[in-house]
């Protein structure tokens, strides 16, 4: 099966290449695989995800996602690629002047779905993440854990090809965490979605086979 993500000897750095976070890392991920990424705080997990959605270009090596070389991709191709990604941010990145429901359907709005479709999807998704009664509230009226679940619902709303999740359960209790893990497992199992999850705690109850990467001292290593 083809690789959805292929990283070959990539170096990721900030400050014009002066501050190297990841150096000479190589890995590939196939379609439908479920990957956990762990590592110490500040090791570069969020940085790696940033590179995967094209917001940080590798300074060396090649990083191919969905067939596009992110080191050289143009704006419009990158835009197109991003509409197939479901990104969950560590800091949620919700639009505070939009209602919860509107936040959730942002990917559908970008794809040009009708308002009717958006509304039905919003209801369905919010029910999944147990936030139905908060649909018309604004993000800042929600708790941190609730905002995080809005972010999860948004990432799943258009059935993405790849989910890139940064600590999606970081603020959640065990019950809510399990709700999230279930959603991701379902996506992976039923829709063959590729899932990459950064987490500090791999769930103990997990029914799917998965791979586990550790980021440490600038390297990306797989645990077997």
């Amino acid at each position, binding site marked *: 099966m083809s690789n959805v993500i292929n990283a070959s000897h990539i170096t990721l750095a*900030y400050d014009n290449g002066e501050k190297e976070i990841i150096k000479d890392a190589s890995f590939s991920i196939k379609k439908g695989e479920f990957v956990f990424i762990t590592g110490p705080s500040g090791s570069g997990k969020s940085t790696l995800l*940033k590179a995967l*959605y094209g*917001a*940080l270009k590798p300074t060396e090596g090649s990083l191919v996602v969905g067939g596009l070389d992110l080191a050289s991709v143009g704006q419009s191709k*990158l*835009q*197109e*690629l*991003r*509409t197939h*990604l479901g*990104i969950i941010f560590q800091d949620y*990145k*919700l*639009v*505070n*002047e*939009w209602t919860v429901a509107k936040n959730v359907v*942002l*990917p559908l*709005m*970008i794809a040009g779905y009708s308002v009717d479709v958006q509304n039905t999807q919003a209801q369905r998704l919010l029910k999944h993440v147990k936030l139905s009664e908060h649909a018309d509230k604004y993000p800042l009226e929600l708790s941190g854990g609730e905002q995080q679940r809005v972010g999860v619902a948004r990432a799943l709303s258009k059935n993405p090809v790849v989910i890139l999740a940064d600590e999606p359960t970081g603020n959640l209790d065990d019950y809510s965490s399990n709700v999230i893990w279930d959603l991701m497992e379902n996506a992976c199992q039923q829709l063959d979605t590729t899932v990459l999850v950064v987490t500090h705690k791999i769930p103990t109850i997990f029914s799917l086979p998965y791979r586990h990467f550790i980021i440490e001292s600038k390297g990306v290593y797989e645990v077997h």
Partner: protein
Amino acid sequence: MKFIKNHLMFILPLMAILLGIEFYLVFDRTTNSYEKGLKEGYSMLVVTNKPMELSVFKALNRHISNAQKIKRESIVSEIAKGVSKSSSKEILASLPYFYNVGLDSYLSTSGLNKIKADLEADKNIKKVETFGSSYSSSYRLFSFIKFTLKLFIVFMGVVSLFLIIKQMEIWKYAHKERMQVMEIFGAPLMLRSGVLFKVAIADAFIATLLTSAIFLYVKFQWAANSGIDVMMENQEELFRLSDIAILLSSALLIVVIAVYSVVFSSKGVEE
């Protein structure tokens, strides 16, 4: 409250620019007719030894647009009152010819002196009389007013542009988060900046409307009742319907440039 303030901070400087543009248009139009009036009211008196055609005057200086012969008979009849017919004929024969010479444009004093010198160089021309002093002072005052007004308009425009940019930065800050999130999810530029465009274009229309309203008021209410001659004579020039188009397109242009500057400077997900 914050919403209104946000818009006023954008609409007011935009209006200042539009008022400046409209002032400029009106000033240009009204002073054109004023200039024309001055020009038509101004002429030189030229005394010649023999009759001269307009083309001859024109050949001497191209700014001369007309030459009107002053009837010598009327001059003679004035000075020769009570003198016999034959001697009045003699007076007429010895009398030079007089012309009122008109110019084609409003000239500076040095321009006038040049014409005078050109004319006096002709051996048939005995004397050229200009009304230099009053002409020159009104011309200087006129150019001074014209200059200061233009300077003021430009100054106001620059200050207003700065205010608009300042306000744009506030908008940029307010919209940055949303535009970045939308960008990460693959929204095209137009969708990302759609709200900004809508708001800014609405403001452009409002500013145009208010500016037009002010000038329409000046034209139909104030100018008509002001008792100021120049205003009443030039009432038609004060505001034309076509000005609305000029103002609106200026406003839209400014707004589009401003929005694009915001949109493009908030690119990039990382800070």
